[in-house]
């Protein structure tokens, strides 16, 4: 009945990284337990994408998710938080299954933010690296100051998230 997949081999590398690697760049990475082909699908098929992009623990919902993962194709995500909604949209510049995805983030007004995601498979597991290149150092500084990071993070209205995520992450005195 139930296959007891306790992801025994996954344990050592499950922790991800996030860094500002230069004045204009943010990089996040993590190893996912599955082949690149499958991971890539989860990034490009809307019915799969919408299941993981907004973590369940977050006080946000994804109202709609359109993804046309072809070069020149567009995506549009609409999020709801309390009474407000927020849209993120852009177009795909590169779609190379199962190793590379590049898209623009067009909702901002400070120039073009480009997101590049690479998928690198080793022994049935896939290293995912998400790289955000901001149009300028000032644009990234502003994003940080505003608490927002475009599509890669979440709507700015989620300042409260800080507390929630903080309590999840540190969990002291919390069940």
């Amino acid at each position, binding site marked *: 009945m139930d296959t007891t997949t306790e992801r025994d081999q996954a344990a050592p590398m499950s922790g*991800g990284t996030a860094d500002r690697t230069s004045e204009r760049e943010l990089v996040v990475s993590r190893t996912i337990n599955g082949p690149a082909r499958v991971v890539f699908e989860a990034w490009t098929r809307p019915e*799969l994408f919408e299941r993981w992009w907004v973590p369940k623990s977050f006080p946000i919902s994804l109202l709609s998710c359109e993804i046309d993962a072809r070069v020149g194709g567009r995506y549009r995500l609409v999020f709801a938080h309390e009474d407000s909604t927020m849209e993120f949209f852009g177009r795909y510049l590169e779609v190379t299954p199962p190793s590379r995805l590049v898209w623009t983030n067009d909702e901002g007004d400070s120039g073009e933010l480009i997101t590049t995601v690479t998928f690198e498979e080793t022994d049935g597991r896939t290293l995912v690296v998400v790289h955000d290149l901001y149009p300028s150092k000032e644009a990234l500084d502003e994003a940080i100051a505003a608490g927002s990071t475009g599509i890669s993070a979440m709507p700015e209205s989620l300042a409260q998230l800080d507390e929630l995520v903080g309590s999840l992450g540190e969990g002291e005195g919390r069940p």
Partner: protein
Amino acid sequence: MSDLLDASFAALSDPTRRGVLEQLGRSDASITDLAQTFDMTLTGMRKHVGVLEQAKLVTTEKVGRVRTCRLGPRRLHEETAWIDRYRRLWDARFDELDKVVEELQRKEKVDGHHDRA
């Protein structure tokens, strides 16, 4: 503002300086205390504290012959809190992605070989 961010990132790039901030988060300390805790010379520690001070992460006050250090008004906030939040969001997101990928693989297996439920 931008210059301050630059100074902060530079200040936080060094493990000793991050350690000093952690230490000062627990209690104020003199340069001498800090030098001992981190096993370095007074001159070396003065330099580190100077960098933190420029980034406004630490303030110092000299009373008599002792210079006491404490966390500055900005503390670690803004930058580190933000990067931390960003990392946690992605961690949670990747956890969900892991589940979706696992499920897809399980389905493929079931579809592939019906002999093994």
